[in-house]
């Protein structure tokens, strides 16, 4: 029998549509990671992307300042219209500053994509349920803000269309990747925010 994080009612989560395994679904959705500059949220998505890229110089992962990932992505996307920027963040992190979706929708930068890895829980603090387990639909919020290119990916057959949306350049894309509440890859990334800033800028700005 599979073991799950303590406190998770996995049968209820699966019945509610939180089915995909993030360790498989995140890499499948993103594809060639070298095509993007990444900004991630805390904990789960930081580990997802650090594991995918081996903590590459094209990622900026957070471990605090919760609620900032989408807006860091916007600032980066506006600064570098020649690059595709992918924000990968969790449901809890996005909910903390969900107004950022309104700000982003108004500007609608074509080189920005947001993936919300939605497990319906606050995984880092003991898997308490988040609002998305209790009826809140982040795709509808994004669409209501005016982001027109949105998808919810909750089964394997949805992954290809979600992946295409992230790579189209007709406007900001927003994808909810619904996954089961299970642990992210146990990758140990660099947690020094200043060192990671220098690393990111050195790689991007030296490359022109």
């Amino acid at each position, binding site marked *: 029998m599979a073991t799950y994080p303590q406190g998770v009612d996995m049968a209820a989560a699966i019945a509610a549509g939180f089915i995909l395994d993030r360790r498989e679904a995140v890499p499948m959705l993103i594809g060639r990671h070298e095509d993007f500059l990444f900004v991630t949220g805390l904990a789960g998505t930081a580990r997802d992307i650090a594991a995918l890229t081996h903590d590459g110089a094209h990622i900026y992962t957070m471990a*605090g*300042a919760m609620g900032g990932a989408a807006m860091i992505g916007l600032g980066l996307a506006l600064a570098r219209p020649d690059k595709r920027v992918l924000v990968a963040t969790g449901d809890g992190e996005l909910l903390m500053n969900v107004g950022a979706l309104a*700000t982003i929708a108004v500007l609608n930068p074509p080189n920005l994509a947001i993936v919300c890895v939605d497990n319906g829980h606050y995984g880092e603090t003991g898997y308490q349920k988040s609002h998305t387990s209790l009826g809140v639909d982040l795709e509808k919020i994004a669409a209501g803000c005016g982001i027109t290119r949105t998808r919810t990916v909750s089964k394997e057959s949805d992954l290809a269309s979600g992946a295409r949306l992230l790579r189209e350049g007709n406007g900001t894309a927003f994808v909810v990747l619904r996954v089961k509440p299970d642990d992210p890859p146990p990758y140990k990334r660099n947690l020094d925010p200043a060192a990671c800033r220098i690393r*990111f800028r050195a790689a991007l*700005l030296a490359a022109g």
Partner: protein
Amino acid sequence: MAEMNRGAARWQDELYDLLRRNKITQFAYVPDAGHRILIDRSLADPGAQSVALTTEEEGVALLAGADLGGARGVLLMQSSGTGNCVNMLSLMKGGHFPLLTLVSMRGDFGEGNPWQYPMGQAVEPVLRAMGVICLRIERPEEVIPTVEGALTMVFQGGNAVAVLLTQRLLGAKAF
């Protein structure tokens, strides 16, 4: 009042030109009367990106992203908005991100609205606690030299700096 507005228009236009000469391209703000001219100029400027925020902390994160991409920005906000930024300033302090913010003050000299005092009086201690250097401006002739100094402190010195546009400078809003 009309006389004061004409004076404010003059230094705000000079201030916008100063910011643009210093390669500021991202203008982030929650609308405020004290920043009206800067906001309008950024909206009309094809070389600038004018970013209306729903809350000021979005602007802090935005400017960190701008810096990651090699661009410069400024956050325009009212004193009450500084309170909305506090935890996000962890990003600037911990990451050594440059931050330039212009804060139009309420809840100080001549304020008639009691709701503005708690945050207005807390702006400097709160920002200092989060590692932000505060520079106060009380007279129109101080605006340009102070912001010139702030630009150097931020983009060469690598600091977070708040320029406080006080109610002695802006005039207290009548109630």
